[in-house]
């Protein structure tokens, strides 16, 4: 049988979809690093999110299970142990008394990503309390929150800006997979910067205490020593408000000079970010009891190369500057939606959806066969239905769309309309032999195109409804019916023409 251009297009698009989905990833062995705790020894040694662990101490790691078994067999205790972690991006050697500070999972079996309701995880939809945020305010909020989350050491998180049909803007924070962090606490306890001497607070982040923060030029810089020793230093100055400066004077007045290091006072200025000690600054003796508005904040960061260390120092400086400038989050935020889905429930949902797909295919095959009594027709309808679902999945994988339950409902609903159209094509082509086959198929296409446009316009408003919660449903339906009308149905019409000729 000669294959026409329309069928060729279908074959090509199906191959591209297969490429996009990449189901052969199932056969890849190893364990994927999902996140690395920032400032941990694992991070310092160069382990990064996305690397694939292939062996631990020379023993092969084929799956997540292998990894956790090898790590628990090592019995980390008070002693420093050497751990050789081989990844697809080289070998890393860790010396630590703790297991590597990373979260690991199996390598995803394909490029298809499933949404939170199917894979488990937490998400929060956040808006400002008593204030309508503009989209630029939301992106400011996102910047600050991303920054803060980094301080927290949470890497496997996605933050996005979402707006709805009525122009409300939201921030969406999503943490995939299992997480022990309570997203809620994390969002509401954000952004505390404190400078303390002993347990007295001298100043905190935000404009009340901090008049300005220098962000460039002479007053804020990163420098690496000319003979590189793994570290680069950063330094920037801040200007305190008169009240904060007065407070500094009042507190330091009563602090004696350090006997063993007489250039400095005996107590230091400790900088805390969200209650974690970030930096300790020694206070020069000439600052004792003086009202000074200029404070310089310094620190150093390390890296394997001079470039890396420079970048790390620069990032750290930026982070501190942002926190000092913004203080706590600029808006009192309110969590308007908060979902935490357990991964095991998601797993059984996924399993049931696959069963459902098989059952639907089976029932429809039987119905079609009973009606048309022709294997060829039944097979080509089923093949077309499968192609539409497959192309939809391929496009979803290509645009990294997270398939949630509504998205999958959309795929199945799209398959339903696809079958309807094919029945129209079959019935038009096998009945009413008075007019030419071409004419009959043209008529079928009129009905199909009409139905296509109505379904697309019916789905469009869903894109903007309710913070995009049903976007997936609209998206997969529209992709499905579009793939249908552009690719599979022309091919199907051609196949039917050949069968009935």
């Amino acid at each position: 049988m000669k294959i026409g251009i329309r069928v060729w297009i279908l074959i090509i698009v199906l191959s591209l979809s297969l490429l996009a989905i990449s189901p052969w990833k199932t056969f890849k062995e190893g364990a994927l690093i999902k996140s690395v705790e920032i400032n941990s020894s694992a991070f310092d040694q160069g382990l990064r999110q996305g690397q694939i662990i292939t062996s631990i101490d020379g023993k092969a790691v084929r799956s997540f299970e292998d990894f956790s078994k090898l790590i628990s067999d090592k019995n980390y205790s008070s002693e420093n142990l050497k751990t050789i972690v081989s990844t697809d991006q080289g070998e890393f050697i860790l010396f630590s008394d703790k297991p590597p500070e990373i979260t690991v999972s199996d390598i995803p079996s394909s490029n298809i990503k499933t949404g939170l309701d199917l894979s488990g995880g937490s998400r929060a939809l956040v808006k400002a309390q008593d204030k309508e945020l503009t989209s630029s305010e939301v992106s400011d909020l996102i910047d600050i929150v991303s920054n803060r989350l980094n301080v927290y050491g949470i890497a496997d998180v996605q933050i996005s800006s979402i707006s709805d049909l009525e122009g409300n803007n939201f921030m969406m924070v999503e943490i995939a997979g299992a997480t022990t962090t309570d997203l809620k606490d994390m969002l509401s306890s954000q952004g505390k910067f404190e400078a303390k001497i002993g347990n007295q607070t001298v100043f905190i982040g935000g404009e009340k205490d901090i008049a300005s923060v220098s962000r460039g030029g002479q007053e804020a810089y990163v420098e690496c020593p000319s003979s590189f020793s793994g570290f680069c230093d950063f330094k920037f100055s801040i200007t305190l408000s008169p009240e904060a400066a007065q407070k500094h004077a009042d507190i330091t007045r009563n602090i004696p000079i350090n006997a063993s290091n007489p250039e400095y006072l005996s107590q230091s200025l400790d900088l805390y970010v969200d209650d974690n000690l970030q930096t300790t600054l020694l206070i020069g003796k000439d600052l004792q009891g003086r009202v000074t508005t200029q404070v310089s904040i310094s620190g150093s960061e390390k890296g394997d190369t001079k470039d890396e260390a420079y970048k790390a120092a620069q990032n750290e400086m930026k982070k501190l500057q942002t926190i000092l400038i913004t203080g706590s989050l600029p808006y009192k935020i309110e969590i308007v939606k908060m979902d935490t889905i357990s991964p095991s429930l998601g797993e059984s949902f996924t399993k049931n959806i696959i069963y459902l797909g098989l059952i639907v295919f089976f029932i429809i095959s039987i119905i079609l066969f009973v009606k048309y009594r022709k294997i060829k027709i039944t097979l080509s309808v089923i093949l077309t239905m499968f192609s539409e679902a497959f192309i939809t999945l391929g496009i979803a994988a290509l645009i990294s769309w997270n398939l949630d339950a509504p998205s999958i409902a959309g795929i199945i609903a799209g398959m339903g309309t696809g079958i309807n159209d094919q029945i129209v094509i079959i019935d038009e082509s096998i009945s009413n032999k008075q007019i030419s086959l071409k004419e009959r198929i043209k008529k079928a296409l009129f009905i199909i195109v009409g139905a296509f446009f109505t379904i697309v316009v019916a789905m469009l408003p869903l894109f903007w409804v309710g913070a995009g919660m049903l976007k997936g449903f609209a998206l997969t339906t529209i992709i499905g019916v579009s793939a249908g009308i552009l690719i599979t149905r022309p091919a199907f019409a051609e196949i039917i023409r050949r069968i009935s000729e």
Partner: protein
Amino acid sequence: MENVPEIIKEEKKKLFKNFNYDKSYKILFFIPFVILLISLIYLGVFYSKNGDIIYKDVSLSGGTSITLNGEIDQSQIEISLKEKFPDVSFTRLEDITTGKQIALMIESSASPDELKAGVEDVIGYHLNEEDFSIEFTGASLSNDFYRQLILALIISFVLMSIVIFVMFKTFIPSTAVIFAIFADIAIPLALIDIMGIKISAAGIAAFLMLVGYSVDTDILLTSRALKSREEPLNTRIFKAFKTGSFMTITALAAVLPAFFIVTGLPDSFRQIFLILAIGLFADLINTWLTNAGIIKWYCKRKGIQ
């Protein structure tokens, strides 16, 4: 025994011969019309009683839903939970292959912390992340959400009407299609209310989907009736009916298993399919009795044979 099917076939033929569509279409037209009228009256009464045309679930009214994994006996916790949370409701999720319960969903308008604490009290142990899922929607967001979904439904309906008018360019046939789709939404809505089902956000999306699903058959009917002349009108309508009803039956076969066979699915997911299924049944009568009746009457008036 062997000729029994033949007899049935003969009977069937007779039935179709005696069936005179030219006479009966007006009566047939009124059956769905009466059902629609009853539905609308019911929805009106429902609205005056409940202040809304549907029962809303927590995603549309605000509140918390907790899904406990595993075999949790609902009867044991129901009474004590109802004391604390009078509006609490339960849904059982089952595994498709074994029929075993995989989870129990508990819904209430309470805050997540309250409901979680309440559930922990009743079941007697502390819930950790592996044991349960929790979803919370704030009241203000769910109100916005609901209002926008209704707005989306109206926008969809208007856009869809425009497409229909552009396709057929004549007033009465286009209006007939739009009327049939309106009935496809109104009748299932009343039925869902009668069944006492709480509609979720995804459920309202299903009504939008219904628009797309039901329009195929209406377009099929209208275009077959108006755009060809090779066969008599009644034959064209009857053939369209044969194609269209088969379309609806296969569509039902695609959506029904999701409700009746595979019960261990997210509730939002199952609801989409339930609403589609009811809508497809409604579509059978609305297309082939109402819409066909109007088209028949229109063709007669215009002298289309």
